[in-house]
């Protein structure tokens, strides 16, 4: 009981500190939301004193002293009402986030899971077929692809398959003519639009999982219980999957938890290149637009989901590793 309380205490403290940091970080940035808005306007010609006044009146920010802002912010966090965005004024932050979230969750989330599953399986295969081409290809190939800069891979795919090949759409999560909704036409369209961004992320993140799993597998394969299973004539597939892989996957779960937690942050670079209306894009706009409320909401979401994902991994660990069950 005391242990649980202690754990919960640290969890809450971490959460609080993260929330506070999320408050402070944006405010450390030089310039105000109005400056950001004016900088945008200034690209269409010189901005006058009067325009600044109007913009400042519009955004009406920031309110009061830092302490007051902080208290307001804490109140927002507790009530989950983050007010109105500056960069997308006068859209409410919650609406913006809720609109972007599904795309990110589906695109980045599915890709993360798929990358983990495929990468892990390939890693198992590579370790099992060690020293053959089935090892070399995924291990070296995967890690080579993994070193490609995200955005660069994205740009190349976009260029060759999108603009030159006209095979895939080049922008957005669905076509302008499709109505978002739960219809087959929309889902098909959305999948078509997600193909390139998904491929980019899959290709560049696969390598890490392959190597991680391969190394863990090789270590496990040398362990006595695997040798003993082989000595008992248990078929190779069973040994590879039920004995070796089942154990080797454990150390990779932590990484998977971190990756899952990062999903809601979206993939700034990929979303940016493909004009994908996810959280990553939103976040980039929030940062460049000095949009404190939006930044805070997104940061909070990421922080909480990382914490929660880690909690889930702990639970998953418990299920997969009986040693931690007690």
């Amino acid at each position, binding site marked *: 009981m005391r242990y649980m309380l202690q754990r919960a205490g640290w969890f809450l403290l971490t959460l609080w500190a993260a929330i506070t940091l999320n408050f402070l970080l944006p405010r450390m*940035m030089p310039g*105000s939301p109005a400056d950001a808005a004016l900088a945008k306007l200034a690209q269409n*010609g010189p901005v006058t004193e*009067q325009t600044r006044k*109007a913009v400042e009146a519009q955004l009406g920010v920031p309110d009061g002293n830092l302490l007051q802002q902080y208290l307001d912010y804490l109140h927002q966090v507790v009530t989950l009402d983050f007010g109105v965005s500056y*960069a997308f004024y006068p859209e409410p932050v919650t609406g913006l986030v809720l609109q972007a979230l599904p795309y990110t969750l589906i695109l980045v989330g599915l890709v993360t899971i798929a990358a983990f599953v495929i990468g892990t399986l390939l890693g198992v295969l590579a370790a099992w077929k060690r020293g053959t081409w089935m090892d070399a290809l995924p291990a070296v190939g995967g890690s080579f692809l993994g070193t490609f800069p995200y955005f660069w891979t994205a740009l190349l795919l976009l260029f060759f398959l999108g603009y030159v090949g006209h095979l895939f759409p080049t*922008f*957005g999560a669905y076509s302008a003519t499709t109505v978002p909704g739960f219809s087959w036409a929309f889902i098909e369209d959305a999948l078509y639009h997600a193909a390139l961004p998904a491929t980019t992320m899959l290709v560049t993140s696969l390598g890490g999982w392959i190597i991680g799993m391969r190394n863990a597998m090789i270590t496990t394969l040398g362990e006595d219980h695997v040798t003993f299973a082989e000595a008992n004539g248990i078929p190779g597939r069973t040994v590879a999957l039920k004995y070796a892989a089942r154990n080797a996957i454990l150390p990779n779960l932590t990484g998977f938890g971190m990756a899952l937690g990062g999903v809601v942050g979206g993939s700034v670079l990929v979303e940016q290149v493909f*004009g994908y209306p996810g959280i990553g894009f939103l976040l980039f706009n929030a940062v460049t637009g*000095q949009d404190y409320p939006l930044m805070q909401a997104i940061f909070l979401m990421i922080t909480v989901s990382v914490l929660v994902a880690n909690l889930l991994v702990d639970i998953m660990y418990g299920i997969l590793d009986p040693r931690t069950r007690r």
Partner: protein
Amino acid sequence: SLQITSKPDPTIGDDTLLIAGDKGTPTFTANFNPFNANARKAAAIVYEPLIWINPLDGTLVPWLAESWEQPDPQKIVLTLRSGATWHDGTPLTTGDVDYTFRMLKEHPANDTGGVWSRVDTVETTDSTIEITLLAPDSPALPVIGAMLIVPEHIWADVEDPSTWRNEEPVGSGPFQLGNFTSLQYTLDRYAGYWQADQIDVEHLVYPAASEEMDLVTKGYDWAYAYMSDVENTWMAANPHNRYWFPPGGIIGLHLNHDVAPFDDLDVRRGLSLALDGKQVGEVAAEGYMDEASQSGLLLPNQEDLLNPEIPDRGIIARDADAAIAAFEKAGFQHDGTTLRTADGEPFTFAITTANGYTDWLRAAQEVQRQLRGVGIEATIETPQPAAYEANLTSGDFAVAMGSSNGSDAFQGYSNLLWGEYYAPVGEASQNNRIRYRNDEVDQLIGDYRASVDEDEQARILQQLEKIFYDDLPVIALYYGGLWGLYNDGRFTGWPSAEDPYAPLQTYQSSPLRVLTRVRRVRNGGAS
């Protein structure tokens, strides 16, 4: 090599103009409140101003106001056009104009033009609007004229017009909102428009995807973007693609006059002589833009305003020896390689430019290179745009890349140089960010504001040009371009250097004028 060509959407009809006039981030939110900074760009043509001002040379074109007069410098009387109606058929009256003024007064957040910083009272009759200004202020006319008029019968019921999103706008412009989705919206021709006979385009399509890549590949009819190597990109993509890049402002070095040694004219002169604006423009704008005149005018647009006394139309040639001489006059020493201050320290300063403004950055780098020629080692600082804004407004800079002047020559000088706008370093000043103070200039600006005589105004302008040339408040480098791209395959009548009736800006009120002149190409000729 791989040449990208345009592949227009076959579903777009002959009467439909594809315009890259708005950019999704990455999607559109429905916001057609024209006073809102994040409004959809098309809101600026759904609503109309009283007077349309040509951003190229500042000429005024009667729009909702069919005429106006300035009986004295403190009064403006506008006569409203009859026959204009709102998209719902309601007639547009002086009541709407009156309402718009009142609404802006009540909601300063919407008064982005700063109308109420100049207006004292507004009185209307059935056909006229009489405006009394706070002070003799003849240049207030274009500011007031540019104000967009909104319908009282709709806006009066809105609780807070400054946060209202106005998702189904009812305006008076040539087009009304058609279909809106988060990735694209269309405007449809309004048959009841007061000059409907001038509108030949049936539909305007504004897609959210309007990156350079899209402009070239998706068959846009009209776009506004700085396109690197335009000949090999935009022009090569379609035989009917055209471009026109007239000057729209002056890009130069903005010197902080409250920071030594930039308060010293000899130093400013030295800098000016050390720099070759042509070369800077060459590097920054790939040769598409000319060297800027130190007169502060946009040449050739404003050629007729130019003071003939200014040598070489205000172009100051690079002369390293003269530059060094000027610096030496200011107490600097040049030892053959390095320019040193009076204390013997190498002279160095930072050039501030906003991160992401790549043409400015290229310019700053070229300036840096050229300054090495006179022994100055400058550094470059690239804060994010918001921080750049904040730094310049508060005077926290020494030398900055900046843009100034523009279509309204007087407005350009007064914004930049008027002592009224002066604030010491540390206090905010949005207009006179260079912290310039000159009694002679203040006198001239006062005189101009108090005058309604065009000849006198022209004379005053020439004097201001001369001061701009002699006193070098900013070092003009090259012209910032108005990057118009269009395709004359399906539509003709676009503005051009020969017929500069409007710039090709896709934002603000410019499209209002352009769309009254553009005509469909009817039989054949389409690509």
